């Protein structure tokens, strides 16, 4: 009951924030709605027992990515409160396609009987056992290459399943590459046409 109320609250915030992003024309307001939406998603993560993930969502998305976006907005703003308006036709078309897409998604979600999944796999879910969260240690061990929550029987010996050490390392290297690449891409360059600096789009 408690969780239900909270869920509906944050679900409403998520959906409202997302809709706000779509509807708003002002890019900074869009960023605000985005923050609202993503922050609420992180709250949903907490509700789903993924506390580490929720914190990560807050730190990386809301605190990092969105700040970066807003930063980008400021850097690319050619005038105060720049608005690049979406034409009504575009909006209508988008709404139609989006509506259709939503219908497709909803029909596939509702057409699926998820409860079958529980019967097909007997392995208990670590998350289900621990609805309040505390997934930090299992996640950390998984990234270090061990899955104590998912034992594998090899002969008579019970061992932890292999985890995600290699993907973890790959992602780390990937991040480094992206860091260098982004720095290279965004480095200061001569503008294409310096005389047009002050002109707004």
């Amino acid at each position: 009951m408690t969780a239900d109320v909270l869920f509906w609250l944050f679900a409403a915030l998520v959906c409202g924030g997302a809709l706000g992003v779509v509807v708003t024309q002002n890019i900074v307001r869009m960023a605000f709605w985005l923050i609202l939406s993503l922050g609420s998603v992180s709250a949903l993560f907490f509700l789903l027992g993924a506390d580490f993930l929720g914190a990560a969502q807050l730190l990386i998305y809301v605190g990092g990515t969105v700040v970066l976006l807003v930063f980008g907005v400021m850097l690319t703003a050619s005038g105060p409160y720049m608005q690049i308006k979406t034409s009504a036709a575009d909006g209508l078309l988008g709404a139609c396609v989006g509506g259709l897409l939503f219908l497709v998604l909803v029909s596939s979600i509702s057409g699926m009987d998820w409860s079958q999944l529980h019967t097909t796999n007997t392995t208990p879910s670590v998350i289900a056992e621990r609805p309040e969260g505390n997934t930090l240690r299992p996640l950390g061990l998984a990234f270090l290459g061990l899955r104590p929550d998912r034992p594998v029987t090899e002969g008579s010996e019970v061992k932890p399943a292999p985890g995600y050490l290699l993907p973890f390392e790959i992602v780390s290297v990937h991040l480094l590459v992206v860091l260098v690449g982004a720095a290279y891409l965004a480095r200061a360059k001569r503008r294409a046409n310096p005389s047009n600096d002050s002109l707004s789009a």
Partner: protein
Amino acid sequence: MESVGLNAYLFVGAVLFVCGIVCMAIKRNGIGVLMGVELVLNSANLNFVAFARYTPLGLDGQVIALFVIVLAAAEAAVALAIALNFYNNHLTIDVDRGSELQG
């Protein structure tokens, strides 16, 4: 026992996804398109975490979601760099202006 189940989260994810797609489709501002991408990624994450909670997917769902977050951060950094370049070249962030690849 809980009235809120997997489907509820999936519906939220669907809304998020559709909003993201529509955002990508209708926003002429490049940064706005990026925001749409973030929404889409978040909807996927939400679904993963929901599956982790309600299906035997377990911890794997969270691990994948974490990877998605990390990669999304990387994507945002690169995309922002591209947007800055775009702005440097076109003096605008309107993606409709960047149609040099028109056939």
